[in-house]
C-alpha cells in the first residue's frame, strides 16, 4: 500500500456513464487485480476503483457513475490533485495459468482485466477475453484488448452487438484457467459454467481498503477473509458456493 498525491491528466467519458481517469505521480508498483482508494473532496470514505493500467507514472482508472462519489469524480478537472491509496489488495495470480488464460469481464468488471491481459501477453501467453455488456452503447475497451493481441468476444444481453446473451454463452473451449471480474450474478454463473480452475475479483463496501477495519469480510473455505487485503481476488476453490 502506498499513500500518494496524484494529478488528474485525463477524465473523459468512454460511454454515457463510464469514464476513464488518468492520474500522474508516484503511483507505486501496482499489480493487475489490485485497486486504488480515491479520496474525494467533501466525502468521508474513499472510493475503491480497480487499476485498469499502471505504467510509469500513470495510473488509469475506469469508473461507472453510480452515486455521489462517482458523480463527483466526473466533475474533477485536469490538474486536480487527489489523495490516493494505491497497490491495494492481492491482485491476480499471474503464475496460475498455464498457456491459455481466459479473461471474463462484465460491465465495470472489465477494467482490471486490461492490465492483466497486458501482463499475461508480456509473459507470452495466448489470451482470450470475453466481455459482457447489457447493450451496444455500453461497450468499451473492445478495441484496446484487441490491440494488445487478445482474442476478444463481446456479448450483449440484448443482442445489439456480438453474441446475444451472457458471458457464459461465449466461453471458448480451449482455455486452461480463467480470471474474472464482474457483477456477482455473472461470477456465480461463471463458477457453475466453467470446468477449468480460475480466480475472481470481488466487491464489498469498504471502511479502509487496507485491512484494518474488518468492514469487508467474506467467509471462504479457509475462514473469514478481508476482500480488501486477502482479496479482492479469490481462487475458485476458496469459494463457499
Amino acid at each position, binding site marked *: *500500500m502506498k499513500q500518494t498525491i496524484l494529478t488528474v491528466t485525463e477524465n473523459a467519458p468512454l460511454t454515457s456513464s463510464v469514464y476513464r481517469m488518468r492520474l500522474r505521480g508516484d503511483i507505486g508498483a501496482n499489480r493487475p487485480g489490485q485497486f486504488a482508494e480515491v*479520496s474525494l473532496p467533501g466525502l*468521508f*470514505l474513499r472510493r475503491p476503483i480497480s487499476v485498469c493500467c499502471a505504467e510509469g507514472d500513470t495510473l488509469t482508472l475506469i469508473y461507472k457513475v453510480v452515486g455521489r462519489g462517482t458523480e463527483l469524480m466526473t466533475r474533477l478537472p485536469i490538474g486536480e490533485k487527489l489523495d490516493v491509496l494505491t497497490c491495494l489488495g492481492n491482485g491476480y495470480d499471474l503464475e496460475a495459468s498455464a498457456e491459455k488464460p481466459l479473461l471474463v469481464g462484465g460491465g465495470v468488471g472489465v477494467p482490471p482485466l486490461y492490465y492483466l491481459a497486458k501482463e499475461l501477453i508480456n509473459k507470452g501467453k495466448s489470451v482470450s477475453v470475453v466481455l459482457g455488456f447489457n447493450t451496444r452503447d455500453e461497450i468499451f475497451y473492445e478495441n484496446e484488448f484487441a490491440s494488445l493481441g487478445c482474442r476478444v468476444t463481446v456479448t450483449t444481453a440484448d443482442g445489439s452487438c456480438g453474441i446475444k446473451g451472457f458471458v457464459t454463452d461465449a466461453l471458448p473451449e480451449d482455455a486452461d484457467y480463467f480470471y474474472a471480474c464482474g457483477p456477482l450474478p455473472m461470477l456465480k454463473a461463471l463458477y457453475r459454467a466453467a470446468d477449468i480452475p480460475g480466480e475472481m475479483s470481488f466487491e464489498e*463496501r*469498504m*471502511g479502509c481498503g487496507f485491512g484494518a477495519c474488518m*468492514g469487508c469480510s467474506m467467509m471462504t473455505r479457509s475462514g*473469514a477473509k478481508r476482500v480488501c487485503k486477502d482479496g479482492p481476488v479469490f481462487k475458485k476453490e476458496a469459494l463457499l458456493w
Partner: protein
Amino acid sequence: MVNTKVDLLGITLDNPVIPASGTFGFGYEFAELYDINCLGTFSFKGTTRESRFGNPTPRIAECTAGMINAVGLQNPGVDAVINEELPKLKKVFHKPVMANVSGFSVEDYAYTCALLDREEQVGWLEVNVSCPNVHGGGMSFGTEPDAAAEVTRAVKAVTTKPVIIKLSPNVKDIAAIAKACERAGADGISLINTLLGMRIDLKTGRPVIANTMGGFSGPAIFPVALRMVYQVSKAVGIPVVGMGGVSCAEDVIEMMMAGASAVEVGAANLVDPYASKKIVEALPAAMEKYGINDLNDIIGKAH
C-alpha cells in the same frame, strides 16, 4: 520543548494519542506503514471469548463527515489473540498495549479479561460494555448502571491490571453509568463508543447496512463525544480516556481540556492510514500555537 508525556493509570505514555479499538487491527497493517512505537499506545480489536465472524455484509455505510460500521466484533477469539496475534505484535511494538474486550455475558467478560490480564504486553484492559446483554434481553450492558457495574466488579475480581470501562453514548445520563462503574472499582473510563445510526439506499429503499443499523463515528460525532467526556470527567475521580471524531491535534487538545487524560483516534485511521502518526507529529506545534507547555496542565481546563 513542550511536554506531551502523560500518565495513564501508572504507565507513562510518550503522548496521549491512542488508535481506537477496531480501527487499528492488531497493529500489523500499520506497522508495515510506519513505526507504530511513535504512538502513546493503541487499543487492539475487540476480543471475545470465542472467535466471531461478525455481522453479514454490507457492514459499512458512508455519512456526512463520518461512517457507520456494523462489523459485529469480528475477531479470532481470545486464545488466538494470545497465541498468534500478541507474539506477532511483540516484534513490532515495544510498549504496553491496551486490550479491548467484549462479551455477551458477565462470565464472558471475566473469562476473557482474566486471560489477557496475564499477558505481559497488556498494559490496560479496556472493557467495552456496548455489546448486547444476551442474558439480559439484548439491551447493552453499557446502557444500565447496574449491568455496567456488574461487569466491572466481575472483571476487577479476576484481574490485576488497570481496568478501563468503555461506555456507550446511546444513553440518557452517561455520567450516572460512569459513576456506577467507578463505585464498582473501575480504574478508568473511556468514551465514547459509536452512536447508533442508520442509512437507507435510495435506489432500493432498503437499509444500506445488512443489519439495518450500526455504529456511527467520525468527525460528525465530535461535539457529542466532547460533551460526554466533559460530563463524565466532572462526575468521576478516575482518569477518563476521550474519543469520538478526533481527527487532528487540535481535537486532542480540545478533548483534554474537556477532561480526557488521553485520547483515542478511531475512524480517522481508516480514511488516512497515517492519521494517528500525523496527529502525534502535529501535537507539539499545536500546543505551541495555544501556549501550552505541558499537556498535563490542560486536562479538564474547561471544568
